[in-house]
Structures are given as C-alpha cells and as structure tokens.
C-alpha cells in the first residue's frame, strides 16, 4: 500500500498550495484540484487548513468537497478506469461491457480491487459519443470498446 503522508505534512503542503492560489477569483475549486493532484485524494486533514486559509467554515469546505463527484476521500487504485454509462454508450452495449469488466475484475463501480491495482468508476459522458462505447483509463481515452480492447485494458491494469 502507498504510504500516507502524516497530517502535519498534509497541512504544510496544503498551506503552500493555498498560499499559491488564494489570489485567484473563486479559488476553492482550483485549490481542491491541486490538493487532489498532490495527494491523490482530498485528505480530511487538509480541510481545516483550507477553511482557515480562505476564511470559510469547515462545514462549507466539507460541503463543497462532498458535492463534487471528482473529489475522493481516499486514494484510488494505481489505475483508474472510467466506463461511460450514458445514453449514447448504452445504445452500443455499455451495460454488457461494464458487466463483463466488473466480473473480470471482481469489483463493482466505486470499488478498488483488493490488490490496489485499479479503481472502477462510471462516468456520464466523455464526449466520445460517436465512438461508443467509450472509456477513460488514467486520463487516456478509448473508444469503440470490444473484447479485444477490454483484454488490453485489463492486461494493462494488472501489470
């Protein structure tokens, strides 16, 4: 498992990010993205530091973090596989693609395999609707998923 940074370290790195970005108009979302980029998730220990730095209540910061699907409370697996489940992909069989991948990985959506190799998530549209069914693996886009491409994806996340 990845080593978790100590909360004092989280606090100091978070404070540096805030210092860097608090001059922006509406800085909270850019700061949260940067924190997630830094730690792979938005650690609880960062929230009071943000609240203090931006003169917000902790409840307000918590409310924002939990509103958005992107911000993670825990680190994801080494790979993140997002499968589009929206209508255009549904029309090309995204349901059965998802069922197959879930079965092969032994996990459902919003879960991580026990070896920490991959987190599986649904996504509602990648804008690849003329290339359905589509997916995103660690930020790389993949269209017209078929058995061959599914095998390639699984080989990559297991390596």
């Amino acid at each position, binding site marked *: 498992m990845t080593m978790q940074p100590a909360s004092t370290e989280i606090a100091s790195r978070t404070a540096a990010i805030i210092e860097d970005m608090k001059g922006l108009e509406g800085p909270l*979302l850019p700061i949260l993205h940067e924190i997630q980029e830094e730690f792979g998730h938005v650690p609880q220990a960062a929230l009071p530091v943000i609240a203090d730095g931006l003169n917000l209540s902790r409840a307000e910061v918590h409310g924002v973090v939990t509103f958005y*699907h992107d911000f993670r409370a825990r680190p994801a697996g080494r790979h993140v596989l997002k499968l589009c489940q929206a209508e255009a992909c549904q*029309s090309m069989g995204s349901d059965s693609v998802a069922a197959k991948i879930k079965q092969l990985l032994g996990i459902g959506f919003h879960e991580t395999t026990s070896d920490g190799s991959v987190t599986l998530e649904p996504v*509602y549209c990648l804008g690849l609707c003329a290339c359905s069914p589509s997916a995103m693996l660690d930020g790389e*886009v993949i269209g*017209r998923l078929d058995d061959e491409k599914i095998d390639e994806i699984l080989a990559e996340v297991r390596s």
Partner: protein
Amino acid sequence: MIPRIYIPGDSGALALGAEKVAMAVRAELAERGIEAKIVRNGSRGAYFLEPMVEVATASGRVAYGPVKPSDVRSLFDSGFLTGGHHKRWLGAPDKIPFLAKQTRLTFARCGINDPLSLDAYKSLGGLKGLQNAVAMAPADIVKQVTDSGLRGRGGAGFPTGIKWKTVLDTTSERKYIVCNADEGDSATFADRMIMEGDPFVLIEGMTIAGIATGATKGFVYIRSEYPHAVATMNKAVEIARKAGVLGVNVLGSPNAFDMEIRVGAGAYVCGEETSLLNSLEGKRGVVRAKPPLPAIQGLFGKPTVINNVISLASVPIIMDKGAAFYKDFGMGRSRGTIPIQIAGNVRNGGLFETAFGLTLGEIVDDIGGGTATGRPVKAVQVGGPLGAYFPRALFDTPFDYEEFAKRDGLIGHAGITVFDDTADMLKQARFAMEFCAIESCGKCTPCRIGSTRGIETIDRLAAGIEPEKNLALVTDLCNTMKFGSLCALGGFTPYPVMSSITHFPEDFKPAPARVAAE
C-alpha cells in the same frame, strides 16, 4: 517541399487509435529515411472515418481513413505522400459526402490545421470579426449579434444579443463573460471539438462579447471529463496573450480583456448556468433561483454574460460577414446553422453542421446511414439526457427549436442518440430518473425526491405491480417535476420519461404480457 502529414490529435480520434497511427507513421518515416512534417490537427468530425490521416499534395489535401497502425506500411508502399491509391483512400476531404453536404460557419476551420497555430487561424479568416468589433461602438456590436438571430446553442435557445444588451445596459465597475463548456449531455461533443480543434474562435468570440458588454474578464468553465480540451485551451489562451489578442490592449485597441480556464469537478448540474456560477465562485454547484438574472447579478454578484461555447464561437463569423449573412441560413425563428451531433448506434456518426430545417429522418437515415448494428431504428433521443425519445413516426419533424417544442421535445445542444430495435424504453425511462437522482443538486424537492420516487415507481411497473395505477402515478410525478423544479434537470427529466411512455407504450406493459408478446 517537405511532405506534410495531418494526423488528428482530437480526443475522439485519439480514442480510435490516432496516437498509435502517429507512432507508426513516425517509425515508417525514420525507417525509410523520409523527411516529413507531422501536423496534429483537430478532427473534421467524421468520426466513422477517424483516425483520418491527410497529406498535402500538389493538388491539395488527400484523406485516408479510417487508418489502423497496421495500414501505415502499405500506405507508404502505395505512395500516399503524393496521394497514391490505397484501400483507405478517401480523396479530397471536402469532397467526402458527409463533409461536402455541410454548411460550415462555426466549424469552418475545425480539423483543418494545427489548432494552436495562430497564423493558420488568421490565414483562414480568423480574427477578422474581432478586428471589426474593436472599431465599433458596443451597442452596434450587440445590435449586429441581435440582428443575426443567434440563439443560445446550449439548449435554452435564448437570443444571445438580448442577453448581451442586458449586460451592456447594467452599470457596474466589473462585468464578466462566462463560457459554459460543461458539455455534460450524452451525444454532444461540439464544444469539445471546437476547444480541441479551433480554440482561437472561442477566445475571439469571448473577447468580442467582452468589448460589446464592457466586461474585461472571462472564464471558460470546462468539465473535468475533457482533459484534452483543458490543455488545448490553456495553451491557446497563453498564445493569444503573447500575440496581443488578449490583454490590456486587445489587437492594439484601448479595450482590455483577459480570460482564465477553470475546470469542473464532475457535476452534471453545473452545466446549468446558475449552478455553474456558484461552482466558479467556489461553492457547491447548487442552482440559484431566478430572478435575479445572471445578466444583472451573475458571477460574484456582477453583471455576467453566460453563453455556451458554440454560441460564442459563432459570433466571430457574424462580426466578420454580417448579421444578414448569418440570418440567411435556417428557418422560422431558428436562424443560422446548428452543429448536429449524430451519436450512439449509428453508422456514420459525427458532427454535421447545417442550416436549421433538415428533418430528423434525413439526419438519421440519409446522413447517419441508419444504425451501426444494421438493425431497424427504434428511437432517437434528441437533446441529451433531458431530451425526448422520438419514434420513426415523428421523423418528419424539422430540426428547429419551435417545431421540436410542438412535439413535446427539444433540440437542446443538438445531440442525437440513435437506438436500434433492441432498446427497452422502460429501461431508458428508468435511467432518465436514475440519472436525475445521481446528478440532482438537491435544492428543490421535485427533482431531489421525485427522481428517486420515479425510479421506484418504474420498477413497480416493470414488475407488473398495479400497472395502471403506477403509470398514472409516474405521469402525475412527471407533471410535478416539470412544473415544480427550479431548473432544467428536474424540469426536463420528464421529457425522456413521458416520451418513452407515450411513443412506446408496448414497452411499459406488465412483464407477463411483454413476454407473451415476444
């Protein structure tokens, strides 16, 4: 002359293997000792032909597609650098029927050149609209946009010029231009294509909007699902700043305008303009009640123009060629062109920009070529997850804001998803409610609770429990959501649900009857 090879860097093309094709081309060039320039252009939008590779020859561009990495060696063997024949040969790209039949105004440049070359942008008419605008009075720019008949391409279809006039007429020391690039509707990718394939047209449109309304700061709010668009827009803004397109003296004029790219965080509802503004301010993306209109009290309480990517990207050509030129296209009160995105289970999927007025049947059958699976078309969802499902019986509906409204539908952001006859419309209706439940911001009760009750009631229908009573209940619930919700998420979720029930009643019959009927 060094040969030029164009391989799209658009994320749709990348999803279909464009990067591997580029690697294979580079390897082949090295092996054969040929010197050539590889240009990563955007996509022209014919995704059924992507990755579409083009070469510049003495007699113009020649396209090949869809190219697989395994085709590359034989392409070189066939002399493709000079337009040689090959099984993937498509000829001149602008003669490919899917592209030749289009009227490209907003997408005139998209996919042709390197999206980050400002010189290439200018060589194809870029910045002419802005040059005209800097020499005009703000009220005259607003009038030209109003006269063009341009309506918001995000879905609501509100006249762009009227929105701008409200902002111009509202006095404030600070005003904003916000571009809504939170393109969350399934079947839509026009915003993404512009941002990845012709980013300067959006920057130009936003700058014109700033000059027209007295706003000096712009934000583009791009969804996080579009990392390639975010990267391209960030680079393009930097280039535009260095070239003096953005900054304190736009194109050397006394007008100041600059912009920032902001990234969403995976909330569909942030495509709704007021929740987008809250999100930009760093708050939960909860919908605001209107009034006050964002044009009067928008971002940080200041007068704000909030427009969709395509609305703003259509402004430069209106300022270049004039209001009458743009208005000449279209029908009724739907003027100009609309980039229709043909998606889902369709043979010829892609972006098709055309004047308003084609019928749904022409779009699906003639241009789209029917389903990818070769089975009959059962239903077409027009306008994304909040749009109605249309059966073949309504294929004579012309693509026009009012004509779709008359048939209890909407054109929305002009995405259409094709389904073949294996689609189960009860399942689609259930998904519409499920999606609303996942993405509801939670502010108003009809959306937050209605969607969940909707799922449960449709599940009871599927199980054959008191079908008549539950069908009446869903209908009543849809009515409450439609008229009681604050924004289009709860208010329009009834469109896909009710259209499924109305046009495909056989899919809502109790389970035993459905089995017996098959």
